């Protein structure tokens, strides 16, 4: 099949950037979207042009590296699917395909389709952990955890940190990402001692990074390749209000 690509090219954070058109003639419907871009890049190299820079690694939908806005949607048209798991059979011969980076105030563009998502790391560093040194752990079965609670924590823990939620949100909010991690830990008995501190610190850091707040668009949930539910945002808000009442807003 043939496709007409319109790809965002930007040679660094300070470059203005623009959409560039490319025609690809020999696309197989069995290719993944990234394999289609591989073909484009091989052609560009042979022509002596710089290939399109994009992040990718595992190509199994779990590492969270890849993330492109395809035809206006983070990770493209398939729901619950990362960019690397999207295949060309979902497109038609002759289609125009628009490819852009994840855009959000807190994600600056590194080059072309690659963005800086280190803000997510810093949010995790602010409190996305349980302080348990190696050596101090009790037997793993010492604290039974109800199956439904463990399952719910696992639903939240499925987050791959790709950034699609913030890229999809009209407010540029990272609430789904923050809620997923804080809820996973706050649901579990092991996470209780640091529950209040955790949620306040993570929300505080999220705001510092320049992410917006949540006003219930639910675009994050629609874009999330792991189908993480916005109910976790409600849970985080509840945890946050309780924490603020108990401990104030100052971290």
């Amino acid at each position, binding site marked *: 099949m043939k496709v007409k690509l319109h790809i965002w090219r930007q040679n*660094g954070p300070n470059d203005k950037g623009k959409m560039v058109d490319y025609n690809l003639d020999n696309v*197989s419907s*069995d*290719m*993944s979207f*990234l394999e289609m871009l*591989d073909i484009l890049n*091989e052609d560009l*190299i*042979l022509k002596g042009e710089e*290939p399109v*820079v994009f*992040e990718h*690694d*595992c*190509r*199994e939908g*779990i*590492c*969270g*590296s890849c993330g492109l806005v395809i035809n206006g949607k983070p990770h493209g048209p*398939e729901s619950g699917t990362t960019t690397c*798991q999207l*295949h060309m*059979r979902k497109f038609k011969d002759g289609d125009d395909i628009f490819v852009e980076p994840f855009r959000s105030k807190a994600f600056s563009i*590194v*080059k072309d389709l*690659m963005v*800086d*998502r*280190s803000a*997510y*790391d810093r949010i*995790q*560093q*602010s409190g*996305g*952990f*349980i302080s*348990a*040194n*190696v050596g*101090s*752990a009790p*037997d*793993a*079965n010492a*604290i*039974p*955890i*109800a*199956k439904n609670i*463990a*399952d719910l924590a*696992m639903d939240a823990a499925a987050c791959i940190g790709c950034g699609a939620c913030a890229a999809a949100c009209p407010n540029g909010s990272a609430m789904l990402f923050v809620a997923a991690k804080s809820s*996973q*830990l706050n649901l*579990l008995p*092991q*996470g209780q001692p640091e529950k209040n501190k955790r949620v306040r610190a993570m929300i505080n850091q999220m705001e510092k990074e320049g992410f917006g707040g949540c006003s219930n668009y639910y675009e994050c949930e629609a874009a999330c390749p792991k189908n993480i539910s916005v109910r976790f945002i409600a849970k985080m808000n509840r945890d946050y209000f309780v924490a603020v009442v108990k401990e104030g807003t100052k971290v």
Partner: protein
Amino acid sequence: MKLDGKVPSGPIEKRWSKYIADLKPVNPANKRKFKVIVIGTGLAGGAAAATLAELGYNVHAFTYHDSPRRAHSIAAQGGINAAKNYQNDADSVWRLFYDTVKGGDFRSRESNVYRLAEVSANIIDQSVSQGVPFAREYGGYLANRSFGGALVSRTFYARGQTGQQLLLGVYSALNRQISLGKVTMHNRKEMLDVVIVDGRAVGVVVRDLLTGKMESHYGDAVVLATGGYANTYFLSTNAQHCNVTATYRAYKKGAFFANPCFTQIHPTCIPVSGEHQSKLTLMSESLRNDGRIWVPKATNDKRNPNDIPESERDYYLERMYPSYGNLAPRDISSRAAKRVCDEGRGVNATGNAVYLDFSDAIQRLGQQVIADRYGNLFEMYERITGVDPYNNPMMIYPALHYTMGGLWVDYNLMSNIEGLFVLGEANFSDHGANRLGASALMQGLSDGYFVLPNTINSYFGKGKPQTISTDHPEFKKSEVEANERINKLIAINGKETPTHFHRRLGKIMWDHVGMARNEQGLKLAIEKIRELREEFWQNLKIVGTASNINPVIEKANRVADFMEFAELLAYDALERDESCGAHFREEHQTEEGEAKRNDADFSFVSAWEYKGIGERPDMHKEELNFEFIHLAERSYK
């Protein structure tokens, strides 16, 4: 040179505890004066970095990813083994030890494996305390499942994402130490050389992938946890960026590379669909519980599988191995698939695939039961192939998955170079010639959380090594060499891309150093690798500059190392003139086509010493002594 594994003596169940009791710990007040460099932040490296920081060491951790959370440990699906005996099915440290040594076809070091089994239970405790959401029963206690190579149920899991959850646990522990200022994290930095002064590892040279700048970093010890080398074969289940550069360059600096020919091939992967293929995706082995594997009896049969009548199908595993049938072990079923495809009976456009058919199971149990058991796998299969596996047989083919070989280490996990430690898949020590399922996660975390934080004392307990300035000529030399190599790659200015050469290298390796190997093929492979390497250095094309982010340079630099390393792998396969575990030499098989081990001549670890590009490396042997487990033939009957 005699390789000393520095294995403690005495009863095997006392060795590790006695070793710890005899350690000379570093004064807590002095620990922060010791700077440890950790390369790679997957399960092994991330766990080591976090734990060393908890102990008070000054840790600098490096990854080529944008974040430690992207390491390929994240892709492990099935689970992690631990000798907890929560199921009351007579599991024990001894049984896990025995299963692992036997599963590795008696080519691993007993004491290391025993220690691994011993600390396995602590890994589960530690992970749960970090909030890793393992699967649980209704009573709230941890659930287990069974896995290949064991008769007990000792595998802990978090849905099909166990690696992800364990890595995120490691990542959270690492984040905590970063926030406390105990770990300095260096993202998007790729290690290109280990610096050695007076026989001691004193630091590394890394390349900043955003700016192309070389940086030197001093360390009182250097820890490599940089994973395996399955991507030598181009197509594997590994992530795109996995590479051999860190361990290979340490090898070029004098570290011994052990057992490189032990490479594991997983039988149930989604097959190659065309030339464009960039990677292969694993489908859980559990599918073989209900699926039946077959190919058409006739060669070149292009009919739709549903139109091929029962009488014209060959359920070859059931035919060749009537007792095990579709559940024949990994290596056996991988080789059988290759055999029928080589006969021209493979399916798919490429001819390199076999059917895994669920129609009998669906008829017998109903679609709902099959959906409950394998729903998520069926969904993944359909997403990738576009074929609905409820109504059409799946197509599968074996693929490179894991590498048991790695840098040689002693009981301390230290290589033959003072101060250079190697953890996880990057070392060779625990899996012998074949790794059992759910044991990779166990080994990475055991090395990182529990082993290295103790054994590093064996080095630091002697006192703080003399600090070497990064202005030292050896640092400068490494920086210059790393830069020159990149400039040399750019200067070739040929006509083919790095990926083009990588794909061709992979084909040589798969054809001649893959599932079945023989002397003639291996000698041919060595010749072909040399020719291709020659061509690579004459006809490689790179675009862009080295002073900006440039994935073409990154790739070329890694492929250049694969081109040299592949030859070492083939040498080892040639030299190991026996079949054992995943290493199958066609010259050595039983009448039924099973691997025939030769304990009299090959019960050793081959540790290779670099002698120059294109030169034959020297082999050193570490004899394996089995004091506690009786050597026996692996039987599947």
